[in-house]
């Protein structure tokens, strides 16, 4: 055999897990592998738990199915596509949340999301009472289920918050085995985990290739190029750049061993989680010149495979820095015009002070007792996919740093400052550089910092003055204690802009509008959004584009009220299930909460 074919054979063998560094090929090992990713959600949970210990909670016979699918002519599944199972791993009591990727692509809806959130919260409660319950999350999903848009988006925010609550007490282990991958909002949860286990078939990313191509064109990301997709999002790359901790082949035994080890390792030290290491995040981002980005393979050498200070030096901006790599590269598929509402409102509310740019696209204004933050358009943003106000890599890093700094500065103050997130953002940034660098991980840093500030006692109020879409809103707004929105036709809160949502759910825009009339979470109208249970004030103003003095007064008073409520309310997001609207439109979430609580400590056989 020639050396070339030897090398090819070795590479194939390595990909199949048949060869370890410097060892001979063990084909028997390949033949005896037992595929994990071919199992269904229950099978995966059972495969990881000690034999005979599985106990399913909120199982199919509880019939906690989605109330929103049947009215849209979509057949529901009896467990809404998430299996919650208790049992032991290596003798340690754990809870597993396993997403069924074949049902709606693993998309997270109201019920499936509430099941995961509540499982995490119950594990945290048990942990606080002295029995640490690690969680294993099998995150096989395209993200938010678009048929339940705003309830799915909120569910993801609640999952992230509950995950962080548990993470301090017991390890939360994310597993991405494939084949769907872990995308959308759920990838943020992966970025928050104590330990991430992935296979070469698995992928983690905020935006999938097809969505990026749709928003930014095939020049930005060719979604038919499978080798490019795996080079950017794939398990080997994520492990090779320190965005995942353990890479294992698709084999039940190997996954079981990896999960058992991660459970046994316990929680990590405070401050050591990826989503807390802003020093690493900043240093890594500084190595990238967006005008001349590295290839995915180069990134492994530049960043190294541990989440620590990168070997590469900061990029020296080239002469062309800040330019678009090709004409029109920063255009958006939603053909949206940059909105100035964020800048207008933060300026108006911070009367007497001038908001200062933390970076070109993130403004901060400090008044007595309150800090305002806004993400705004910046035509000179070197990351060209975030020039119209999108939340991209550096926006997340800047926001995370503000929350951390504010919380640190107020540690010894009697009353912690209020933080107001002024929200007008078209979405997260859809781009190839963003995915390669791990936008999900940078959003996780912002989510973690916001949660930490809220739990420390900072009242955090989101004020939606324009668009609040998808991952952008998950980053900046949805982790707030209170959410206010202007009652204005220009205010739009959703999981995806209308044209894209129609394409993905295989409907026309007209059909989508028709469904939205009877299905509130699907609606693009802010008044419908306000009925979902987590709107703490819909504010009438005369001019949302260019507010009058009265408008500013109205909004400032509403913010004061929200701050006062936040100071006396819970520091977690549990009040989103307590409002009068939640009792009506989030009935299913409340049923999940109550049923899981009841079943949590039941002994088998009861």
């Amino acid at each position: 055999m020639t050396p070339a074919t030897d090398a090819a054979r070795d590479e194939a063998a390595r990909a199949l897990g048949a060869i370890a560094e410097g060892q001979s090929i063990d084909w028997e090992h390949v033949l005896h592998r037992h595929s994990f990713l071919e199992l269904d959600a229950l099978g995966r949970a059972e495969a990881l738990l000690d034999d005979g210990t599985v106990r399913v909670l909120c199982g199919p016979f509880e019939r906690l199915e989605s109330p929103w699918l049947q009215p849209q002519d979509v057949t529901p599944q009896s467990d809404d596509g998430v299996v919650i199972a208790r049992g032991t791993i290596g003798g340690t009591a754990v809870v597993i949340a396993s997403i069924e990727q074949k049902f709606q692509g693993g998309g997270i809806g109201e019920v499936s999301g509430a099941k995961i959130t509540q499982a995490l919260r119950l594990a945290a409660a048990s942990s606080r009472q002295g029995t640490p319950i690690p969680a294993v999350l099998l995150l096989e999903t395209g993200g938010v289920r678009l048929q339940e848009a705003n309830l799915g988006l909120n569910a993801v925010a609640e999952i992230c918050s509950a995950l962080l609550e548990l993470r301090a007490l017991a390890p939360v282990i994310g597993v991405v085995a494939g084949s769907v991958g872990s995308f959308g909002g759920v990838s943020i949860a992966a970025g928050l985990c104590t330990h991430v286990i992935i296979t070469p078939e698995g992928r983690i990313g905020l935006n999938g290739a097809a969505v990026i191509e749709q928003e930014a064109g095939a020049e930005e990301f060719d979604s038919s190029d499978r080798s490019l997709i795996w080079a950017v999002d794939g398990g080997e790359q994520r492990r090779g750049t320190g965005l995942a901790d353990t890479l294992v082949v698709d084999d039940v035994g190997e996954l079981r061993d990896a999960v058992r080890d991660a459970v046994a390792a316990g929680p990590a030290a405070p401050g050591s989680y990826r989503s807390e290491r802003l020093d690493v995040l900043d240093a890594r981002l500084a190595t990238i010149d967006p005008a001349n980005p590295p290839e995915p393979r180069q990134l492994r050498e530049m960043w190294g495979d541990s989440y620590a200070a990168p070997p590469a030096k900061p990029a020296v901006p080239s002469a062309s820095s800040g330019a678009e790599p090709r004409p029109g590269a920063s255009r958006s598929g939603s053909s949206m015009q940059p909105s100035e509402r964020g800048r207008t409102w933060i300026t108006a509310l911070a009367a007497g002070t001038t908001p200062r740019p933390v970076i070109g696209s993130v403004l901060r204004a400090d008044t007595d007792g309150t800090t305002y933050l806004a993400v705004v358009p910046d035509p000179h943003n070197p990351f060209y996919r975030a020039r119209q106000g999108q939340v991209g890599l550096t926006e997340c890093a800047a926001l995370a740093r503000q929350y951390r700094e504010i919380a640190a500065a107020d540690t010894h103050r009697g009353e912690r400052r209020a933080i107001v997130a002024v929200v007008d953002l078209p979405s997260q940034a859809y781009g190839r550089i963003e995915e390669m660098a791990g936008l999900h991980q940078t959003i996780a840093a912002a989510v973690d910092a916001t949660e930490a500030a809220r739990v420390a006692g900072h009242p955090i109020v989101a004020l939606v003055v324009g668009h609040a879409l998808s991952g952008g809103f998950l980053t900046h707004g949805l982790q707030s204690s209170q959410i206010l929105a202007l009652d204005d036709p220009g205010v739009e809160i959703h999981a995806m802009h209308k044209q894209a949502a129609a394409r993905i759910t295989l409907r026309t825009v007209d059909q989508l509008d028709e469904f939205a009339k009877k299905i509130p979470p699907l609606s693009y109208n802010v008044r419908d959004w306000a009925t979902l249970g987590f709107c703490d004030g819909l504010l009438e103003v005369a001019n949302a584009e260019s507010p009058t003095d009265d408008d500013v007064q109205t909004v400032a008073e509403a913010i004061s009220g929200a701050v006062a409520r936040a100071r006396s309310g819970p520091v977690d997001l549990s009040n989103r299930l307590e409002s009068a609207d939640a009792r009506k439109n989030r009935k299913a979430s409340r049923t999940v909460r109550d049923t899981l609580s009841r079943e949590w400590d039941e002994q088998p056989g009861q």
Partner: protein
Amino acid sequence: MRTMHYQFPASRSPARRVHVGVVGSGDLEVLLEPGPAGGGGAAAHAQIRVRTSVEGFDEVWQATLERFFARTPVLGDWELNDAGATPALVTLRLQQAAEAAGSADTAESKEAS
């Protein structure tokens, strides 16, 4: 989406409830629960509810279910949540559920879930 109800004469009581399958493209899930106790006897029927995302196949459903229950007369409440499975797969899933449910009429195991 279409919801259909059927009933067929049946005689065998399942030993336990069973859940098989997934509402994934080209597949379906089946839930079978034993009916009310003492529901046997000559007038006994299997009750079936079908929810399917594909419309216009009522006769195919009728024929598929009729043939299955003629050969496998398992009592109880059957729920089928379908995402466009072929008749062959529907039959396979029903068979899988019937086998997993066992028979209450023999000494076979008790309630397992």
